[in-house]
């Protein structure tokens, strides 16, 4: 049984640590971070956009004081951009230099056989680490003090890329045909993968990860988050705002507001020196939380009743 030494003694410590870095989270999330560190496993984080998946990785990196290495996935991402590439230009230069030096190197060698042997003595410099350009995945293995690797929106990448990741995620090593296998130099990096579930991530990948689903937060948690992020906001406004957003999430909208929108809205209202929500104010700032005109149009007639309900439950 592996019991790697972890910087945290318990789940509660993780939670407190994240909280001190202004990331308010449920115990489920803290448990995930704790277990990932304890079991050396990547975490696959799923959930609707804007619930703080990426933020979790950033905060954890800051908390552990490790560099955050980020790889944003997109269609067509391949290993040349994710893993490594050869420095072709440098290789070309090397060839030119070699050409010029060839005379000196081969001076005194008689016949083809002798020249070749002389050349072999130089070793295979051409494909060596000097000519290797590390990309994020390889870089995370090369960090000697450990790192946090964030593979963002894995669902956007192709299936082939996912398969390529498997070796890295299960054994924390990558194979480069010309060099052999490269293992993590320091402690294994803590890997976060995020997915918005635009497509089902393959079973093989899921099997290698802890699976964390972050839903929209409950009202008390969301209030705590708003309070941590926008501490200047008046408490009454904070309660109303969260109640209003929670009510919005029940509606049939194209895109319901996430936590990031709640925080943006709180900041907006603060800028406008609002003391409490009123119809006109909400109408004017609705575009901060709703990103589709259709949604705004659909909601406008319902605003007064929603507001009243929010005020009541706040």
């Amino acid at each position, binding site marked *: *049984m*592996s*019991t790697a030494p972890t910087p945290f003694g318990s*789940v509660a410590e993780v939670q407190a640590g994240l909280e001190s870095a202004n990331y308010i989270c449920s*115990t*489920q999330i803290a*448990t*995930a971070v704790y*277990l990932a560190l*304890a*079991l050396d*496993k990547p*975490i*696959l984080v*799923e959930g609707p956009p804007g619930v703080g998946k990426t933020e979790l990785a950033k905060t954890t990196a800051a908390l552990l004081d490790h560099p955050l290495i980020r790889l944003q996935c997109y269609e067509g991402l391949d290993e040349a951009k994710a893993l490594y590439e050869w420095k*072709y*230009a440098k290789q*070309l230069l090397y060839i030119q230099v070699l050409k010029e030096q060839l005379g000196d190197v081969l001076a005194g060698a008689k016949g083809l056989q002798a020249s070749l042997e002389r050349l072999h003595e130089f070793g295979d410099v051409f494909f060596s680490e000097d000519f290797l350009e590390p990309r994020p995945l390889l870089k995370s293995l090369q960090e000697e003090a450990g790192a946090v690797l964030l593979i963002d929106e894995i669902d956007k990448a*192709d*299936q082939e890329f996912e398969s390529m990741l498997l070796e890295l995620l299960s054994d924390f090593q990558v194979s480069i045909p010309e060099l052999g296998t490269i293992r993590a130099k320091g402690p294994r990096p803590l890997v976060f993968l995020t997915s918005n579930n635009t*497509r*089902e991530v393959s*079973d093989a990948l*899921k*099997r*290698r990860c*802890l*699976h*964390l*689903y972050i839903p929209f937060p409950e009202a008390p948690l969301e209030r705590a988050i708003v309070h941590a992020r926008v501490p200047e906001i008046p408490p009454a406004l904070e309660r109303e705002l969260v109640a209003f957003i929670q009510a919005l999430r029940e509606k049939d909208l194209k895109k319901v507001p996430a936590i990031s929108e709640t925080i943006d809205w709180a900041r907006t209202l603060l800028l406008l020196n609002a003391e409490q929500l009123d119809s006109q104010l909400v109408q004017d700032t609705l575009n901060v939380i709703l990103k589709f005109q259709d949604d705004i149009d659909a909601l406008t007639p319902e605003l007064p009743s929603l507001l009243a309900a929010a005020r009541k439950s706040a």
Partner: protein
Amino acid sequence: MDASLQRFISALRMAEVRISPAETLDAFRTVDRMGMENRQQLKESLALVLPKTAEEKLAFDACFDAFFRFEEFSDAPPGASDGERGDGDPSGEGEGSEGQGGGGDGPPQGQGSEPRKSDEASGDPAGDGPPGDEGTDPFGDPGPGPVQDAQSALGQQLQQGDRAALALAVSQAGEAVNVAGIKVFTQKGLYTRRIMDALGQGALQEEIGTLATQADATARRTAAQLSGLRDDLRERVRDFVERQFLLHADADGHRLREAMLRHVKLSNVEHRNFSHLKRLVEKMAKRLIAAHSRRRKKMRRGQLHVSRTLRKNLRYDGELIDLAWKARKIDRSKVFAICDVSGSVATYARFMLMFLYSLEAVLPRVRAFAFSSDLGEVTENFQRMAIDDAIATTLADFSGGSTDYGQAFDDFLRVAGSAVNSQSTVIILGDARNNYGNPNTKALREIYDKAQRVIWLNPEPERSWGSGDSEMPRYRASCHQVNVCNALNHLERVISDLLLAVR
């Protein structure tokens, strides 16, 4: 713990949470790390390791709560009052009102209470019935008063009322009789009795019988108290078996039914099973989608993409190091489904259409046609309505009328003939029984020549092809592929082949 975690995982698997051996190992490491003391923490940790989709998380939550509930056996047993009310309702024949005895003042027999296989274990032939009654009844109610200590092991344990120990004993007895092996609900009584026997019911029964026939009031009171306690225990054991059944067998039965439904002839499926079939079709479709949703990029190796190569190699000073090849994405072919919806074949048409339209994600261009005598396109129905409604409308519009394949092929060519090309797959579903009309093989031939593939699915068994008015042998010559297709698993195979071929 190891064993119960293992059992928990198999219960999860029953609930259709897919768990690999590697994940099982992870679960053990997790438990090792997190400990068992904090139930909520255990649940949250295992929820990270075992279930891997949102649906699986729901199943996990339910399963966890059901599985680990038994540890909390102690609260309020069914029908029994709360412990110490030594003399409550005087008329009570025992039903719990006599109390649970000393509520834990005796030393807990705890670990020592291994399931006792009593010598007289088969003392209760009637199983669930309350066989103690004939012993207590004739002597009436002994009234309140002191009771004596029971002699039998189970009796002592019941009198001590150490609920945790009892719970442990029940669960150990359950293990001894392999209650996890329960398969169908009719076995509940059987397992309840076996567990009661394993707990030592026989000896207790005998004691109650003996005590009840004695003249001494204390003895009779004891008998009444014991039989009340025994009934409580039986209730609890029945509850326990019920939960085990839900955990271990219900899904099994479900799976059994699914396996059966896959193989049964579609026309024999009863109407009430249609909803199951529908779910099954959705499940099969989902699997096919997962298997085929990879987008294929086909490289045409050997054709250099000159301009891209030049652009790509500009950075190397124009030396051509990295070559670019022409790649093209394979165009998905169109599928035309022609369904005979007359009487006997209608059921098959229903499920094939359901299947095809469940595959929209990987098979986006399906055009559907229905006929019995005249043929018409019904694609729009499926785009506008939910699958069920679309099928119902289609059947209402086109079924009825005598089958005329010749006419149908002509109509098809007229309606969609120009759209059929070398990338099209035409699926024809029908029994080829043409009522001795003109088979019009020429029309089918024309479709055959135009299309990439013509697949004929016939619900009749192969030996009856060609008998009576079946034109199958003649049509067969103009098809690339002919299959018998009368059960869901046939349909799945054909469609899986289709997906491989067209993409």
